[in-house]
């Protein structure tokens, strides 16, 4: 088979069985890979009311068709399940080289069901797949767990996915780490593994990925790499990586500071790209990527691949921590213990604001480094009262102490580091994303007019559709100029059969609508397409958008036009006409 391996691995941890089944070719043609295909498998396997942490829940890990080839920035793989943090359908993806390795081992993806009686890890050595005892890894951080799994494989260089203590404790924003510093970061992917008693997966694959016509495939790959990818619009990833956004968002006045009180950080120089470059030891890349956006840094004895922009802001500015070494230490703790730095940072900044406002004393204050670092460990291990409080995320923390006006989340997912009052497009993106506040569905920060609702709604809808197929083909966000024509050409050449841009466009819309149907079936309604109170009521301080709110009236106008453009009802339900066009009219959701 070209591009695909044609085989899924099915692991039932309750029954202790590992089987394979042929890849559903009919689904592959409609959902293509990664996000879309995992979503299709997932919605087929569970009922929407499933408890995310129950053995009945299923986790689908899926690679993408171009993953493992020389096509650059195409090696990401997706995890789809219902999130223990938000209760929504949830897609999270990771780069690195686990995805390619899984394909070299002969599988397009893994379906994980049930719950093991005691901690186990999954060992994939080409076609020899076994469930192994992981008792000796219990309580270990991600770094050590990966080392132990690699040793169990008996071969250096095996690729790994692992969880740390946070996920064993089923913290709803624990994550799955891979190759030390890469993550299925958001939505509690780690807790899903934890709930299944699955400590990790180690994989070695020695096979290959085939294409229809190698010479032509290499020629097309080279063409797009040189003439589209490696062009001015994308080269920031190579030179600076995400830290460049510190200056960009500050200039735009959308850089969250002091738990989203201000849109500008007066001390940004301590955490901007220049600061990262000064601490940099080298560049790091995912498989097949010529950009190497990962910057490996060291300050004193603290080293890490990163920190990335989201952590620099949510674990830095937004907590008023202006010390790169402290942010590196925070980041490394999260990466090893297994916490999402974004939710963790945002929950800490909330606790800081609650402490400073006198709502509740968590002994956490803006700019205070020692306690900020201490609490990360307390969260992951649930070892103190405040650790247990913060371990539930911003929404629960605010609810418990009556501070709902301070919690910065949508559908329970803490906001990324772009201020919606300064850019309404980000607000629309957060309100309408299927997984809560997320910047990876639409990213309209470069819009000409950041407050032109109609234009922004259109931009958000188009980006959501385009990204749905982009993530499904395993592409990285940072090939910013890619489009479905390029994707279709690469897919056609690789598969040896015609794939059109139009069918990829439609697949994107199909994926978006299927996610919506799942959320509606779990009980989410249009009322959940909303924004934090602070964004709608409290004027932004500092920066060019000082004084702005994203009012309820503006939001409801935006949503009305969003639903119309999507051909959804005023209550946010896809019309039967739209579903028929997308071939979703027979879905049981």
């Amino acid at each position, binding site marked *: 088979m070209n591009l695909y391996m044609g085989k899924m691995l099915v692991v039932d941890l309750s029954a202790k069985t590992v089987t394979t089944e042929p890849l559903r070719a009919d689904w592959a043609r409609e959902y293509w890979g990664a996000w879309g295909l995992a979503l299709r498998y997932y919605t087929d396997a569970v009922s929407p009311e499933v408890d995310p942490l129950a053995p009945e829940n299923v986790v689908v890990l899926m690679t993408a068709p171009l993953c493992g*080839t020389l096509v650059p920035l195409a090696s990401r793989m997706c995890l789809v399940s219902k999130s223990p943090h938000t209760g929504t359908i949830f897609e999270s993806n990771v780069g690195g080289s686990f995805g390619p390795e899984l394909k*070299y081992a002969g599988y397009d993806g893994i379906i994980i069901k049930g719950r093991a009686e005691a901690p186990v890890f999954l060992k994939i050595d080409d076609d020899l797949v076994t469930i192994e005892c992981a008792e000796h890894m219990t309580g270990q951080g991600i770094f050590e767990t990966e080392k132990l799994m690699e040793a169990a494989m008996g071969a250096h*260089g095996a690729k790994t996915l692992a969880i740390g203590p946070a996920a064993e404790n089923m913290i709803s924003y624990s994550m799955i780490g891979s190759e030390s510093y890469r993550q299925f970061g958001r939505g509690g992917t780690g807790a899903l593994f934890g709930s299944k008693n699955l400590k990790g997966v180690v994989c070695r694959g020695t096979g290959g990925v085939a294409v229809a016509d190698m010479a032509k495939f290499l020629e097309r790959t080279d063409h797009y790499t040189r003439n589209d990818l490696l062009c001015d619009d994308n080269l920031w990833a190579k030179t600076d990586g995400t830290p460049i956004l510190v200056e960009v968002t500050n200039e735009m006045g959308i850089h969250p500071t002091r738990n989203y009180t201000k849109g500008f950080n007066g001390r940004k120089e301590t955490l901007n790209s220049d600061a990262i470059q000064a601490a940099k030891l*080298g560049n790091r890349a995912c498989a097949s*990527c010529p950009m190497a956006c990962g910057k490996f840094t060291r300050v004193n004895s603290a080293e890490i691949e990163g920190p990335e922009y989201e952590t620099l802001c949510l674990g830095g500015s937004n907590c008023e921590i202006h010390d790169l070494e402290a942010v590196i230490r925070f980041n490394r703790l999260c990466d090893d213990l297994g916490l999402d730095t974004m939710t963790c940072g945002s929950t800490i900044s909330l606790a800081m604001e609650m402490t400073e406002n006198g709502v509740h004393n968590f002994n956490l204050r803006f700019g205070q480094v020692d306690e900020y670092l201490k609490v990360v460990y307390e969260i992951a291990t649930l070892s103190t009262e405040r650790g247990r409080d913060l371990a539930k995320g911003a929404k629960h923390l605010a609810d418990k102490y009556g501070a709902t006006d301070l919690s910065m989340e949508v559908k329970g997912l803490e906001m990324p580091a772009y201020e919606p009052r300064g850019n309404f497009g980000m607000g629309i993106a957060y309100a309408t994303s299927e997984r809560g506040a997320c910047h990876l569905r639409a990213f309209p920060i470069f819009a000409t007019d950041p407050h032109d609702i109609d234009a922004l709604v259109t931009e958000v809808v188009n980006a959501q559709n385009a990204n749905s197929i982009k993530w499904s083909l395993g592409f990285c966000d940072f090939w910013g100029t890619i489009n479905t024509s390029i994707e279709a050409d690469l897919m056609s050449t690789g598969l040896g059969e015609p794939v059109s841009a139009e069918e990829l466009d439609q697949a994107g819309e199909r994926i978006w609508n299927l996610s919506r149907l799942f959320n509606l079936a779990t009980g989410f309604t249009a009322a959940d397409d909303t924004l934090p109170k602070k964004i709608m009521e409290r004027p932004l301080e500092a920066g060019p958008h000082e004084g702005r709110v994203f009012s309820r009236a503006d939001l409801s106008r935006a949503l009305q036009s969003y639903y119309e453009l999507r051909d959804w009802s005023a209550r946010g339900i896809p019309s039967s006409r739209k579903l028929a066009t997308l071939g979703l009219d027979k879905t049981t959701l």
Partner: protein
Amino acid sequence: MKKELFANPDLCTGCNRCTIACSAKKEGVFQPSKARLRVTNFPLRGYSVPNICFQCPKANCLEACPTTAMFRDGSGVVRVNRDLCSGCGSCVSACPYGMVEQDAKGIPYKCDLCEGDPVCVKECHAEALVHATGDAALFQLKAAQMKTRPQSGTPLEKRHKIAETLKRSSRG
């Protein structure tokens, strides 16, 4: 002066474009496990080492070959003549750098410098691989990589041991 292949681990990002491209050229599929160079990754320390064949002036692989299957061509490249190979595997254990491996039939394969136009170099956007006549700095790099010569172990173990040494001297 003839051009040689040089590797600079300090610039390597661990992307594996080189191994993916090498396997595409040599095997017709994307299969890094069959590439003629390999990359040893240490993600926790942010370090990667491209393990390459040095086309050693005094090549152990060639010297160990009991037939004349291993030979040096006019441009100095150490090559395998499949027709003359007995499949004994002596070259595999003889190469101290782990750069000769055997295919399913027992016939060894190794880097042949792509007839003087290395594909791996073309795909290395980090300039961690260069094909050049070489200067003092490059020869120094090469000498450092050739210094550790594990005498036992599988090719993978040898490559890992060499990479560990290089990592230690660079990352501490």
